[in-house]
Every structure is written in C-alpha cells, then in structure tokens.
C-alpha cells in the first residue's frame, strides 16, 4: 500500500521538477464486478480490473490533466503534459488546488467486496424474493455490481493520503405482466448490510400491484414519490448545486444563495458517509470530505465547491472536488416526522410514482423539464393505493416542485440506479402538491 503511495508521490515530485506549479496525482487500483441478468437467468458475469493514475497539474494558471495506466511510462507522460500546459491558455479564474496538511479517518471499506465467491447467488436470492411476492411467472432482470478501490493521493500542495472504497448494489426490475412492473434496489458500502431479498421483494410487490394498468388522465395531482424516483430528483437537484453548474448556468440555483427555494421543512445535504456507495474520506484534491448542508430548512446555504470555485465565490471548499469540477457525492434529505403510511393517508386523490427515467430539460436555468415515470404508477384515493396506471409523463418545473413539497416521511432508503438515480442518495418518501402530468395524444 505504501509502495503505491510512494509511486504516486513520485509522480507529483517529477511534475514539480519538470516545472509544474501545482500537481495532484491520484492512483486508483480498482476491482469491479457485475452480474447482469434478465428473464430470471444470468446473461453475463463481468470483471474489470483497473490500474490508473489521474494527474492534474497547473502551470501559470493553465490546467491540464491526464490518466496514466502504466508506471513505466510516467516520465514521458508528465513531460508531454507539461509541454501541453505551456501551449495551452491561461484560465484566469483558476484559483489553485487545495492547500493544507490533513489527517483522514481510516476508510471503512469491506474487503469482502474485492471478490465475491458466488456473486450469482445474490441475484437468485433477489429473483426468488420477487417471485415470492408476485408469483412464479414473474420475469426479472437487473444487475449486481460490486466495487473495491484502493485510492492513493498525493498533492504538491500538502494533502497526501490513502483511502479504500467499497460498494455493492443490486437493481432488479420484475414484470408480472407485459406492462406491469416494479423496480427495487439495494445499495450498501458493506456486505453485512446488504439484503438483496429486500430489493426483490419490493420489485415483486410493486409488480403485483401494477397489474392491469389503464392509461392515466392528464391533470394536476398531489403525488407521493417513492424513495427510488425521489433519488432521481435528488440527483438532479444535487447536480445543480455544483458550483460548476451555477457557473455555466445549467442550474436553477443561480443567484439564489441565501434565498428560500423550498419549504421550511426541507433540509438537503451532501454526505459521502461510510454507509454510502460514494463513501470516501477525501476528495480529488485531498480535502477531507464532510457533510455539507446546502439547503437548510428551505434556504439555499451553499454551492458545492472545489478549492478553485470556492475562491471565485469567496468561500471555502466543501470537499467536493472531482478531477476538474466540483461534484456531489451522496445527497441526503433530512427525514420528516410523519410515517410513510401517514403520507398516503393524507392524500384524498393523487398519484404514487415509484420510478422514472429520461429526465430532460427545455431550459435547465429555468428548470422546465419532463420525465417519464415507469414501473408502478398508481392512483391514490382516500389514502389508499388503487388503480394501476401507465403512459403518463411528469411535465413540470424544478423550483415549483421544490416549493410544493408538503410532507416528508421518516423512513428513508439509500438508493442508486443506473444513470437515472445518480449520484446515490438517502431518500424519504415525499408528497409534492400540484404536479403536472401529461400523456400522448
């Protein structure tokens, strides 16, 4: 382990020797495994081993980066990078990489996730749980994914450290009929907390309820969002809090610092904590990660920063540096006081949405978008989940929806799904009033 850190530090020193003003090198030794399944059978099992060092360096405010896959070629790669920096253009807004000397807590990665002995067994456990809920004829597909990374970081500005990061995720979609499906996910950082049957059971339960869907009516509804679809919304909102999104105006939060953007009951945080699939003890500049509250009781408190964007906004880095841009790690919505059942009980006539995909914007600065709910879509009448629906589209606005959140459950789930609910999040059920739904004509 120390050998890899030494090699990473050598890259930093080499770049300094060759004239770089500032350098960060991050070596990742990663083992990634995946089982893909469909029609209740395993389609393919995949292993990726990756060894790479990301290097970002600055020379007279010119920022360049590379990825080195072979330590034998380090000298040539760094020389080439310096050469590139010298003919690149100055970025006047570059504020430098993070400085300081930090101590990091020991990562709590689970070594068992380096190599599972029988990964397909977790898949079959989830499939069986779905069958138990919805019957033997259920048709399931999805993925099991595991990650184990050893990360070594060295910066010319002081930070140096080692981290281990692990994650396991099972995503299962079960069909009880051609157009009746449910989706469940189970996301963890360690094997001991991983219960694939939970995901299977949820997928099966929703699929069973979803049988016999009718085309939904256009209109304005009070909508309960399941944690999985809520995770998709949180991913969008979290991405818009990145200072980079604000700078390029792909965010509804431009000029909203200190202003109310949601009801007083809403608090949103970014937190790459030990439980999260995005667990990490430092960011890509070596700054210790921490929990950052970005919407505090409805008021936008901060954007997510690296050292350079923090300088532009006259604040401190929030420990969200990616290699080039700041990025959210794991979005949390603070739990509410009502139970999930109480949320449903308070809806006289509304919808329950369980999942979505294809969220696309007309104008991401304004926040106008649509997204297509999939899997279970249900009418709620007098507090009860009833008729299954299909073919509806949610067409609304980010700020309007944030402002219309009227209840948050105390139950929360750690969710992540493909690129649709990404980055991972800790999501409660939420009730949003007056959501616009449309369909094809």
């Amino acid at each position, binding site marked *: 382990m120390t050998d890899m850190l030494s090699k990473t530090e050598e890259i930093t020193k080499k770049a300094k020797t060759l004239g770089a003003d500032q350098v960060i090198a991050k070596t990742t030794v990663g083992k990634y495994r995946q089982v893909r399944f*469909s029609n209740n059978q395993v*389609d393919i099992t995949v292993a*990726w081993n990756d060894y790479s060092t990301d290097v970002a360096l600055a020379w007279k405010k010119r920022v360049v980066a590379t990825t080195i896959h072979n330590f034998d070629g380090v000298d040539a790669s760094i020389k080439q990078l310096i050469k590139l920096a010298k003919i690149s253009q100055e*970025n006047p807004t570059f504020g430098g990489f993070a400085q300081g000397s930090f101590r990091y807590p020991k990562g709590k990665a689970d070594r068992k996730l380096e190599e599972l002995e029988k990964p397909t067994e977790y898949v079959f456990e989830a499939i069986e749980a779905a069958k138990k809920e919805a019957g033997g004829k259920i048709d399931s597909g999805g*993925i099991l994914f595991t990650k184990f990374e050893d990360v070594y970081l060295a910066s010319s500005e002081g930070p140096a450290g080692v981290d281990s990061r692990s994650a396991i995720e099972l995503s299962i979609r079960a069909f009880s009929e051609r157009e009746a499906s449910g989706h469940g996910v189970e996301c963890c950082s360690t094997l001991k907390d991983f219960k694939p049957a939970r995901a299977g059971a949820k997928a099966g339960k929703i699929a069973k309820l979803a049988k016999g869907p009718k085309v939904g009516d256009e209109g304005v509804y009070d909508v309960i969002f399941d944690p999985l679809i809520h995770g998709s919304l949180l991913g969008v909102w979290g991405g818009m809090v990145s200072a980079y999104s604000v700078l390029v*105006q792909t965010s509804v939060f431009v000029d909203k610092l200190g202003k109310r953007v949601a009801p007083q009951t809403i608090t949103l945080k970014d937190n790459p904590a030990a439980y999260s699939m995005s667990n990490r003890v430092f960011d890509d500049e070596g700054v210790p990660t921490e929990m950052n509250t970005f919407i505090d009781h409805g008021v936008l408190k901060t954007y997510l920063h690296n050292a350079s964007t923090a300088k532009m906004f006259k604040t401190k880095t929030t420990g969200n540096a990616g290699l080039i841009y700041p990025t959210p790690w794991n979005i949390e919505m603070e739990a509410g006081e009502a139970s999930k059942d109480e949320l449903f009980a308070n809806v006289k006539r509304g919808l329950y949405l369980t999942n979505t*995909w*294809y969220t696309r914007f007309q104008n991401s600065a304004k926040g106008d978008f649509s997204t297509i709910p999939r899997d279970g879509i249900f009418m709620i009448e007098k507090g009860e989940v009833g008729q299954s629906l299909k073919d509806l589209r949610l067409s609304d606005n980010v700020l309007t929806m944030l402002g219309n959140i009227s209840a948050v459950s105390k139950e929360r789930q750690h969710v992540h799904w493909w690129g649709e609910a990404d980055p991972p999040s800790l999501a409660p059920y939420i009730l949003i009033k007056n959501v616009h739904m449309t369909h094809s004509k």
Partner: protein
Amino acid sequence: MDEEVADFALECARGKKVEYAEVRAHSQVQDGLMLRNGVVEAYVSAVDSGFNVRIIAEGGIGFASTNKWTKEEARAVVNVAFKYAKSANRKEKLVFNEEKGVKTKWVVDQKKKIENVPPEERISTLAEVNKALAASKVKIPATMTSCSINLITKYIVNSEGSRISSYVPKIGAFIFITVAEQGKTEQAYEQFGYSGGWEAFSKWKMPEKMVHDAKVLKDVITKAKTVKPGNMDLVCGSEVAGIAAHESCGHPMEADRILGREMSQAGRSFIYKGGPYWLGTRIGSKAVTVVDDPTVEHSYGYYLYDDEGVKARRRFLYKEGLINEFLQNRESAAKLGVKSNGSSRSINYDREAIVRMANTFVLPGELTEEELIEDVKDGVYMKSFTEWNIDDKRFNQRYVGREAYQIENGELTDPVARPVIETTTLKFWTAVDAVSKKVEFDAATCGKGDPSQGVPVYTGGPCLRLRRVFVK
C-alpha cells in the same frame, strides 16, 4: 497495444473447455478540451489501452478485462472469464449464430491528420465559436464548449479464426449556450461528430451554426408566440426527424431489448413476439423508410466490422411503413434464428459489446422542403428540438421545438415558442404523408448498457410532413 498478449490470451482461452472465445484489444489516444465562456478550463490528454476476454462455456458468458499488458495478467483474466461463464448455470444455454472467421484490416482516412494538428490550433479553432458569438450582438451570459478527439485502434481475434485490425480517428464537439433577453433565458446545445481528420471543422461550420442558434433563441424570447393547441399539420426538420428515427425506430428495433436482455435498464420494446407489433406489422405510412447504416463514410457512427467481427451493412428497420428488420448481434441473432447484421458495439475494452445503432435516418423522398411547406394551410414547422424523451417501451414520446415557426397558407410566418408534440410511435409515423429529398445528419451520443456506454451515432433524415397531429 500488444497484439502478442491478446493472441496469447486467446490461446489460453482455447486451451480450456470453451464453446467460444474472443479477445478484443482496444486502445484510445484521447484529447479533451473544455472551454467555459471561451476560456480554456482544462485540457485532458491520455492513452487508455487494454483488452478483454469473452468466453462462452457451459452455455454461460463470462467477461473479464484488464489494462495490464502482460501474459500473466492475460492468463488471469482468462481464468476469471472462464469461471464466470460456468457459474451462470443457465437453463437456456447461450450460443452465438454461426459466422465465418474473417481476416482483415480497415482504417478511416484523414485529409488533414489530427495527429499533425498542434494543441494551439485545436484551442484556437474551438475558440472561434466564442469570437463569433461575441460579435453576434446577442446577450450570451454563459457558454460551455468541449472537443474530444479519440484515435481508436482495435484488434479482435476469436476462436473461429477471425483476426481484425482497425484504426478510426473520431472527433467530436459539443457547445451549450444560454441566451438572456428581457430578464428571461433560453438555452440550446449542438453536437458535432465525424470519423476522419481535422477537416471535420471546416464541414461543421460551428461558429455560423451557433450564431444562428443564438439569434433564434433571442427571437424565441422577444418575438415568438405560443401555439394555440389543436390538431394541425406539422413539418419536422431533419433534426427532429433524426431524433424520432433514433428513439422510436432504432431503439425499439434492438433485438436484445426485444428479447428482454435490457429489461431492467434501457427497458423493453413495444415490439415483442405474440404482441400487436412484429416483423411485417404496419407502424407508419408508406412514405416512411428508416434505415440504420454504419457504412455512411465519415459518419460519427462509422464502422466496417462490428465488435464481434461481423461485416457491417445497411439495415432497413421500417420499410415503407412496415417493421422490417431488427438490429442484431450474434447472441440475439442465435436466439431469433437469424444472422447477425453487424450491430454489436462497445465503447472500450472494459465493456461488453451489445446491440447498438450506428447512423439511423429516414430515407429521402421526392419533394423539396419548400414543396412540403407550401401544401400546409395551417401548421407548425419544428426545425429543431430542445427537451425530448420517450418511454422505455419506446412508444410514448415528446419533442419540444427550439426553432419553430407558424405555417400559414404555405408560408412560414411568426416564430413559435416551444411547441410540443406528445404522441405515440404509431401515430407519429402513420401521420407522415411526405418527406423531402435532402437528408441531413446530426451527431449524437447514444446511451445504453450498464455500465452506460455512450456510443457515437448520427441521427438524421429529410424533412417530414405530418398531417393533423396534436400540437400544443
């Protein structure tokens, strides 16, 4: 790339009890340039190189990859792939359709070699867009510009005797602008793509195109009216025709989706055996023929052999309005009892090749664009789109116009703000009564697979005229 290590890996795999083995080596020399408001934010340059081994054993598929080019590592990944294949424990055993081994090399020519274009020129070429925008007299508070260069070398060998080498330089650019007027904003992006050399930039005319977009957005804010919702004629520009061809023809015609292999992520298809739509079923008018063709020279989705070593050819997906031919790889083809039509693609050595589109477009008709429009009494011309999406069975779709105009008595009149068509695949393609004769292409990145694999494609077509569809 070390072909000897790849050959060694194949020999290791053949030494085991396998039904099929394949090694795909994939090396990419990559350059990425990112500008914000015309200033270089970062310049990323890297070489990514590795190989994978894919094995069928006991009716299961195992896949393992590495970026370590050693024989020791090759043996290790073969062992993992073999172990994984056997662990599948499938009731329905997987096979690939039969193909003859192919030995060939193919390359894409460059008129102006990218390798000879210095970074300074790469930066200054991209910065031209911002100079033009600055001179346009439109208020543009933010732009985001990027350029990606990818010099791709592949080497594919398999247990059937195939040995295929290729070299493809791909170049892409993406520009996103925000226009502000009267306290309001509108946004647009354009993507450009090409297989070939630096001559791409002279073909794209990026500065002119982005200045046009900026002026259009300004008009949308300051002049455009909203459309009065109702049934009317709709003329779709090539950009809208292209996205519709891609989303509601190309995707639902992917055989792996039809067979359920993508059921959890990218979804299934409205086309399935025993359902209302299958080969030979009418899905559009006779005016509609949509093809997918990897062999369009210098296209963003260009290839001559796919990533399973199958020769590429044009596929007629919807032919004169009928569902005609699915996109197939060797796995799906075997399941459906047909031949692969060379639709298997992967973005890198560490991703499995799956069924993908290449360049999907509507074939042209006889009329000019003006002739299409002059026969419309009351309608909308949606030249380009902003928001779009489609459900995961690829049936319910929505396109929101970016540049759009009212059509009155055969003439384009006022600009229209964000007209929306939200309809089904059947209604969209059935409503087409005529198509124009000039095909234009747009570059796009098609997403599919888990982990997601964004592959370069073209979408395109002529203008389409749809009769009496609901526009709001």
